[in-house]
C-alpha cells in the first residue's frame, strides 16, 4: 500500500518523467510559457560579437502574454532610448535620434534587430512555432540529472517560414536548451543555445542565450538576463506608441 502511494505521488508530481507519450506541442507551449510567464519584467544585456569588434548594450524588457512586449535600451548612452514595441504581430521601433516611431514594414522583418544576429522576425514571431509547425519527439535522454526531450518541428506547407525544420531541445523543467534552424537541404544554419541556466525570479531559466550562424562561428549575439520578475502586473499604458516614444517608467 505504501509503495502504491509513493507511485501515485510520483505520478502526480513528475508527470513528464513518467508519461511515455509526451505531447511535443504541449512541451513547447510549456517551455514558452515558462520563459515568458503570463507577464514579465526583465533587465538584460545583449552582446554582439564579430571577428573584429564586440559591443554590449543593456536593456529593459516588459512582456505581457505572447503577443505583447516592449524593449528599451538603457546603455550605452548613444543607444539609450531606442525601443521596440510588439503588439499582435505588429512591430514598431523608436529612435530618439530621429525622434520618430517607425512601423517595421514586412520588407524589414528579415533584417537584423538592433544589429544583432536576431532578425526582427525572430523577435516578433517566436511563438509561431507552436501553431505553424508539426512537432514530433525524436529523442529522450538523460542529462545532468534531468530528462531532455529533443523535438523536431517541421513547418506546415504554407507557413511563412523559410526553415526546413527546427530542432528544439527542452529539459523536463521546461528550460529550452537549444533551438536549431535547419535549411531544406538538411544543413544546420543557425542555433540558439542556452549557455547558463540558473534560478532567476523564482524560476529556473536560461540566463545566457547565444544565437549564432553555424558557418560563421565567431559571429554571435548573446542575451544575458540580469534579473527577471514573473507575473507582474503592467498598466495598459505601458504597451502603447506614446509610451514607446516617451518612457514613463
Amino acid at each position, binding site marked *: 500500500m505504501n509503495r502504491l502511494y509513493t507511485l501515485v505521488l510520483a505520478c502526480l508530481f513528475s508527470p513528464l518523467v513518467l508519461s511515455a507519450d509526451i505531447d511535443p506541442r504541449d512541451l513547447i507551449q510549456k517551455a514558452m510559457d515558462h520563459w515568458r510567464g503570463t507577464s514579465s519584467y526583465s533587465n538584460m544585456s545583449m552582446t554582439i560579437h564579430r571577428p573584429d569588434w564586440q559591443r554590449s548594450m543593456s536593456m529593459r524588457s516588459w512582456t505581457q502574454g505572447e503577443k505583447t512586449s516592449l524593449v528599451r535600451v538603457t546603455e550605452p548612452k548613444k543607444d539609450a532610448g531606442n525601443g521596440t514595441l510588439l503588439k499582435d*504581430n505588429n512591430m514598431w521601433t523608436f529612435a530618439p535620434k530621429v525622434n520618430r516611431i517607425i512601423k517595421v*514594414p*514586412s*520588407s524589414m*522583418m528579415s533584417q537584423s534587430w538592433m544589429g544583432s544576429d536576431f532578425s526582427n522576425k525572430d523577435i516578433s514571431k517566436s511563438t509561431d512555432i507552436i501553431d505553424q509547425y508539426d512537432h514530433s519527439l525524436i529523442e529522450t535522454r538523460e542529462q545532468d540529472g534531468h530528462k531532455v526531450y529533443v523535438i523536431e518541428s517541421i*513547418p506546415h*506547407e504554407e507557413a511563412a517560414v*523559410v526553415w*526546413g525544420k527546427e530542432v528544439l531541445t527542452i529539459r523536463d523543467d521546461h528550460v529550452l536548451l537549444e533551438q536549431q534552424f535547419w535549411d*531544406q537541404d538538411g544543413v544546420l544554419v543557425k542555433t540558439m543555445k542556452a549557455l547558463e541556466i540558473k534560478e532567476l525570479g523564482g524560476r529556473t531559466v536560461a540566463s545566457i542565450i547565444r544565437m549564432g550562424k553555424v558557418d560563421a562561428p565567431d559571429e554571435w549575439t548573446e542575451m544575458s538576463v540580469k534579473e527577471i520578475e514573473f507575473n507582474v502586473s503592467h498598466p495598459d499604458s505601458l504597451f502603447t506608441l506614446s509610451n514607446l516614444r516617451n518612457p514613463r517608467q
Partner: protein
Amino acid sequence: MSGLPLKAILMLAWRNLWRNHRRTLIMLAAITVGVWAMIFMTALMRGMVDDMLLNGIRGLPGEVQIHHPDYRDDPNVNNSMPAPHDALLSAMRVPEVTAWTSRVRVPAVISSERDSRGVVLLGVEPQSEVKVSFDLETIIEGRFLEDSSDRGLVIGAKMADRLETDLGKRVVVMSQDPDNNIADRGFRIVGVYKAKLASLEETYIYGGRETVQKMLKLGNSVSEVAISGGDYRNVDRWLGGIQQAAGNDVETLPWYEIDTYLGSMLAMMDGFVLVWIIIVFLALSFGLVNTLVMAVFERVREIGLMQALGMRPSTILYQILMESLLLLLIGLALGNAIAVGTIIPLQGGIDISVVAEGMEMMGTSSMLYPALKLNDMILANLIVIILGLLTSILPAWRAASYNPIEALNKT
C-alpha cells in the same frame, strides 16, 4: 522639250556613261555600297528597336493598361481596383484585342534560409498571362503556374541563385495587406524561368492570382489589367473604346504613355532612320558630283562642238542629268538587291552575345533580328534619286552654260 527626242538623249547618255567604264563602275560601286548600307543598317536598327519595344511592351505588359489612378505613382496594395466589370469585358471583345489579363502586382520581399530580396510579386492568371506577357519557353526548370489558384511560385534563375534556393524548395513571400499588416506566406517553388534580360529574373516572381489575393486579403481586387493587341503602332484605333468602357475611376493608358522612354524610342527611331540615310547620302553625293564634274570637264571640247552643231543648252543639261539618273538607277537596283540578299539570310537572328551585357543595358537581347521595312527601302530610294538628281544639276548646269567658241578652243 529640246530638239532631240528622249530616246536619243537616253542613247547618248547611256553611251557616254560607258565611254569611261572604269570611272562609271567605281561610281556604281559607291552608290551600290551606299544604298546597301542605308538599307542594311536601317534594318539592323529597326530590328534592335523593334526588339526593345516588343520586349518592353511584353514586360509592361500589354499595349494598354488599366490601373487605379494612383497606382503608377505609388504601386502599393491600397491602390488596387476591382476586377474588370461587364462593360469593360465586352469592350475588350473587339477583334483588335488579342489577349488581356488581370494581375495583382505589389512590392514584396522573398526570403530563403540564407538571404532575402526585394521583388515585385505578380499574382497572375496563367492562361491569359502567357498570351500577354510570360513566355513559356523561358521556363528552364519545373513548370509555369497551372491556374489562378495555383499555390506554387515561379521565380527567375538568377533569383534562385541569389537566394541559394532551388526548384521544389519553400520560400517565404512577405508584403503588406491593405490595413498595413504584414501579409506573409510560404510558397513552394514550382518553376524557374530564365528571362532574356537577367535584370527581370531578379525583379519578378509569379504566383497564382487567387492565392496572392488571399494572402494580401485583397478580395477580388487587382492591381492592373493589361490588354494586348499585337501591333504596337496602331494602338490608338482601339484605345478609345477601352478608355470609355473602363470609366473615369481608373486610369487607362497606352504603352507609350506608361513607359515614355519606350514611346520616345519609337519616335527617335523614325527620325534616326531619316538622318542616317541622309548622312550616308551626303558622303555619296560628293562622289557623285565629283564624277559628273570630271565627266563634264573631260568633254568640254565635245560639248562645245555639239553646241556649235546646234544642240541646245537645255538638251545638254538633260543629257547630263540623264547620265546621272541612269547611274543612280543602276546603283539603286544593285544596292537594293544586295541589301535584300544579305538581310533575308540573317532574318533568323544575328548572335551578338559577345556584347550582350552592354546591349542589355539598353534593354535589348543578345539576338539581333534585322527588320526589313518596305517604307524604309522606299525612303532610301527616293532620297537617293531626288537628292542625286539635285546634286547633278550643278555640273549639268555648268556644261549647258559653256560658250561654244571658248569651249572649242579649250585644250
